[in-house]
């Protein structure tokens, strides 16, 4: 029997709010199925199952803010019988997880932001403990309506418990602010723990552009390619050749992988950024890469990404798009070990076979984790990328 738990959806995640169950007790589930939807700082994420089996029991209530690792459901393995009701196999089986006070979360090691102190105390506000204040804010409860049992009538966390059950599904007050905090936490951690170094190369993308134009000329808009799909494909092929820039740094070492899951940094309109991964991009054709990217960008903007997409990236591409600056040295997304930063395409004088020609060029800057790689590997990655972009038919 397995316990389906609140997953960690990023190095900075402390807790998530369960907002939807897509299964009920008795349902058959398979590895990769979406069982629940959790609201996080990065929007709603569909949580996938890691095993085959049957749902025995749902253990968490909708609207509950639960810490990473909290049990959500019990899953029986294939052929496994339900345990006797009085002797549950799993220790957590007979206790529903309690909603977590923000203060307890702030005590977790390696967690920089303290949600409890992020909420200002307005003048004339009701006295309350920081944890109770944070929780009340989450639940949308007005503290003035609560009778406090603490010193001088201060509202304590336990005073909220009565009201908790009737609280509606949690709506974060400002999703944009929450996303900003998530980005800040992940990027600060990256810069504090990853010794970055950077290699740049300006690449002639004229052959790739012309190849895309020729391919698109007789295709309807729904089947057209973007240059970005070629960049993703070139990254997938180069990462497969240079394994030391591909993977996740876990427990003091790069965990080897033969899969390439390319994170695609997607700017959200109105601000914010997410970088969901195109899972197994290494095994895709250019057309599959393009349709995968379209789907990923659409769902990133609609706020419906899957848990595997936000946790299993092995290298990320961040592109400035068609208009913008010519180069970017990006910050690596932990626990990944490299990031491909692409500037906007620029028309520049370029030497082609001994003569100066106007060509469209793109500057690639590879940010690399020096704990894992040295300049030689980074240079090799760039050379591989460049050779595929020069010969797009190899993509």
């Amino acid at each position, binding site marked *: 029997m397995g316990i389906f738990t609140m997953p960690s959806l990023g190095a900075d995640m402390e807790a998530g709010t369960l907002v939807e169950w897509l299964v009920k007790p008795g349902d058959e589930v398979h590895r990769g199925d979406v069982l629940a939807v959790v609201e996080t700082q990065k929007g709603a994420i569909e949580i996938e199952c890691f095993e085959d089996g049957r749902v025995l029991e749902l253990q968490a209530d909708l609207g509950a803010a639960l810490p990473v690792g909290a049990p959500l459901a019990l899953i029986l393995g294939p052929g496994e019988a339900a345990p006797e009701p009085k002797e549950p196999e799993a220790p957590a089986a007979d206790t529903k997880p309690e909603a977590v006070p923000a203060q307890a979360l702030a005590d977790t090691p390696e967690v920089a932001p303290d949600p409890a102190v992020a909420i200002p105390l307005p003048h004339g506000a009701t006295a309350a403990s920081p944890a109770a204040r944070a929780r009340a804010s989450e639940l949308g409860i007005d503290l003035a309506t609560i009778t406090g049992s603490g010193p001088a009538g201060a509202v304590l966390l336990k005073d909220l418990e009565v009201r908790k059950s009737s609280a509606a599904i949690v709506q974060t007050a400002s999703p944009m602010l929450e996303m900003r905090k998530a980005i800040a936490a992940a990027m600060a951690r990256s810069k504090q723990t990853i010794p970055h170094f950077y290699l740049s190369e300006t690449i002639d993308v004229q052959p790739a552009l012309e190849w895309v134009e020729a391919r*698109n000329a007789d295709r309807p808009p729904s089947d057209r390619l973007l240059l970005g799909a070629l960049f993703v494909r070139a990254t997938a092929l180069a990462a497969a050749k240079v394994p030391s820039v591909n993977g996740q740094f876990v427990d003091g070492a790069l965990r080897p992988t033969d899969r390439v899951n390319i994170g695609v940094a997607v700017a959200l309109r109105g601000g914010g950024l997410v970088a969901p991964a195109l899972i197994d991009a290494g095994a895709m054709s250019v057309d599959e890469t393009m349709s995968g990217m379209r789907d990923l960008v659409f769902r990133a903007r609609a706020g419906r990404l899957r848990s595997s997409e936000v946790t299993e990236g092995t290298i990320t591409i961040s592109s400035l798009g068609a*208009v913008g600056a010519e180069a970017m040295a990006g910050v690596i997304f932990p626990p990944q070990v490299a990031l491909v930063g692409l500037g906007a395409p620029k028309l520049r004088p370029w030497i082609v076979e001994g003569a100066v020609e106007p060509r469209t060029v793109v500057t690639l800057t590879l940010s690399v984790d020096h704990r894992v790689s040295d300049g030689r590997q980074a240079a090799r990655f760039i050379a591989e990328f460049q050779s595929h972009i020069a010969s797009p038919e190899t993509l």
Partner: protein
Amino acid sequence: MTKEDIRTAFIEELLDIAPDIDPDTLGEDDHLQDDLELDSMDVLNLVTALHRRLNVDIPETDYPQIATLALAVSYLTARVT
């Protein structure tokens, strides 16, 4: 289909892709990428949506001709049957 219908269709599809744009302040000459901050994926999605809705297949080489509301309305009006 009148010019006004085409204008409405273009604005609706644009807002579907960029819901934060305020149709009341959308300028005739606002550039899709420079002013309204559409990226190349957004432009492709807009072209795909216009193809579906108006049955006008805009080739890549013509993208500059739909770069603003004013340009797009006259381009599409000439091509909608």
